[in-house]
């Protein structure tokens, strides 16, 4: 395989990882100061910071590989909606605590197995970031799993709320493991991850936790796709408007 392929595939992977962690990190950061109690507020904020920190590493790597002089900030803040490659799951607006937890749990279950595979990537920079992120994500999954079980197997009220959250999110799960030409190339080159294997392992985790939580979740027959290709939900524009407003109002400002 030639160098151009490696470059393209690594850029695509780093951008996808960066966009998913950036947008979910931003969604969680919206809850800073709005968590149900101080302890959970700060827990979510910690996770948000972890994800944004990971996004910085991924986008920095993407910028370096691209070689077009774009920094992590340029990539994070100066693209338009159709240029973001994240899955639709991470851009969905926050609803109640159960919904936030369910969305987080689905993402964490996939995120962890993706990082496990990426830590063996033939691209050293990719493996390095994955190894660094993996410890954080192990805790994220522990945190969200605990809450899924606590609320699912809690009162009738909390159980119904959790079930309804998973029902709403069900069509957004599959997109996390949809591959395309470039991600297949990344896998062939040993840079990326195996989508089928991730899907299988993520579902093992989800099934185990949901069984304990007395909740039902099955893969959706019809599901959302297209985030990777820049087809986002209508919510994406609002996130970007908020995320980018300062940077666009004061270009190149430093503080």
């Amino acid at each position: 395989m030639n160098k151009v392929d490696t470059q393209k595939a690594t850029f695509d992977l780093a951008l996808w990882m960066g966009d998913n962690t950036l947008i979910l990190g931003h969604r969680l950061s919206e809850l800073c100061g709005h968590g149900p109690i101080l302890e959970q507020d700060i827990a979510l904020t910690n996770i948000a910071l972890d994800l944004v920190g990971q996004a910085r590493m991924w986008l920095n790597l993407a910028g370096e590989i691209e070689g077009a002089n774009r920094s992590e900030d340029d990539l994070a803040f100066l693209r338009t909606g159709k240029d973001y490659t994240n899955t639709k799951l991470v851009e969905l607006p926050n609803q109640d605590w159960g919904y936030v937890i369910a969305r987080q749990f689905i993402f964490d279950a996939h995120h962890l197995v993706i990082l496990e595979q990426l830590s063996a990537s033939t691209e050293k920079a990719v493996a390095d970031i994955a190894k660094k992120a993996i410890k954080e994500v192990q805790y994220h999954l522990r945190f969200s799993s605990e809450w899924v079980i606590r609320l699912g197997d809690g009162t009738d009220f909390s159980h119904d709320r959790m079930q309804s959250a998973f029902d709403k999110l069900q069509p957004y799960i599959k997109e996390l493991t949809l591959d395309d030409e470039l991600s297949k190339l990344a896998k062939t080159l040993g840079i990326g991850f195996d989508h089928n294997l991730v899907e299988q392992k993520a579902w093992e985790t989800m099934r185990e936790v949901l069984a304990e939580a007395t909740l039902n979740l099955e893969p959706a027959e019809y599901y959302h796709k297209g985030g990777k290709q820049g087809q986002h939900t209508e919510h994406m524009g609002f996130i970007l408007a908020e995320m980018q407003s300062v940077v666009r109002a004061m270009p190149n400002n430093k503080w």
Partner: protein
Amino acid sequence: MDNTWPLWEVFIRSKNGLSHKHVGSLHATDAEMAIENARDVYTRRQEGISIWVVESKDVTASNPTQSEELYDPAKNKIYRHPTFYDIPDEVGHM
């Protein structure tokens, strides 16, 4: 209905060899959640490597109104302090 979660006291060991030290309190529904909350609230800046939690209601405290009889008698017994010895360097921190 009382909606408040139980209060827990949090103890953190900052490094091996030192003892756990009380750092504060927090709310949680059970011990496991208390550990996680403590991790998120009290170890964000690398404050520790081990956490203990105990429900505040399980802590028995001395009575502040009895502090005179409890603590004052120790005041003038300087011979209880090992200050008359030179501590060898090998002993390190005491």
